[in-house]
């Protein structure tokens, strides 16, 4: 409820669209999706947070958990986020240094490809 999840392949990278509120109530659904994608051998992920209205520490924990899972397979989890109120919680928790945070899905994919 109040969280919409979608995902699609773009240039061999799996893009996850997240819309709504990621909190203690909805975070389990995002966790399940990330685990499911990794189980299906998608290790290069971009999570598009442009339509996220609310993110709390439970949601952050799920993103960090996803990052650990893809890293265990030498993969990556990049974020797309330009909203100041969402970026603020990444800064408060020091996670801006942990995630690659990009301005658009295209930018995230381009930088990831260049990194290889």
């Amino acid at each position, binding site marked *: 409820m*109040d969280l919409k999840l979608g995902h699609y392949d773009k240039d061999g990278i799996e893009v996850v669209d997240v819309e709504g*509120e990621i*909190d*203690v*109530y909805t975070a*389990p659904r995002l*966790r399940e999706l990330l685990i499911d994608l990794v189980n299906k051998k998608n290790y290069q992920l971009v999570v598009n947070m442009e339509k996220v209205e*609310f993110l*709390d*520490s*439970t949601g*952050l*924990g*799920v993103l*960090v*958990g996803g990052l*650990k*899972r893809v890293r265990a397979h030498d993969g990556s989890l990049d974020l797309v986020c330009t909203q100041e*109120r969402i970026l*603020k*919680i990444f800064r*408060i*928790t020091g*996670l801006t240094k942990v995630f690659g945070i990009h301005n658009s899905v295209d930018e995230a994919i381009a930088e990831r490809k260049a990194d290889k």
Partner: protein
Amino acid sequence: MATVEVAFTPLPAHVRTARLIATAVARRSGVDESVLDEVRLAVGEACSRAVEAHRVYCPQQPIRVALTGDGERFEVVVTDAAPAVEPVPAGAAGTASDTVIDGLAVIAGLADDVRIGAAGPGTSIAMSWKQRIPPA
């Protein structure tokens, strides 16, 4: 006396209700729009912690939230009844294999002032913000 007091059963869905209430009461107490997001997030963090602790230790007990706007400060006190002083162990509420991000650190980064105290068997987290405009 607090302006508005709320008590709710420890269900994750009620954390949203608590956030909604805190934002509405803060807005009507004259808290600046730019600060409302901070209030919403901080109250949500405190209530999420309380809900997880109650689910482990005392699922029958309500969590209490008191909101007070005196025109100078807007204060929210979230009180749980969980006997544990230590944080709830990681994974206790189904967060297995996720990194536990410290909600208290988030609250400390958001509120102008945070005080943590013992409250009966449980813990209270008092968060406050300076009010920038007078109440309506």
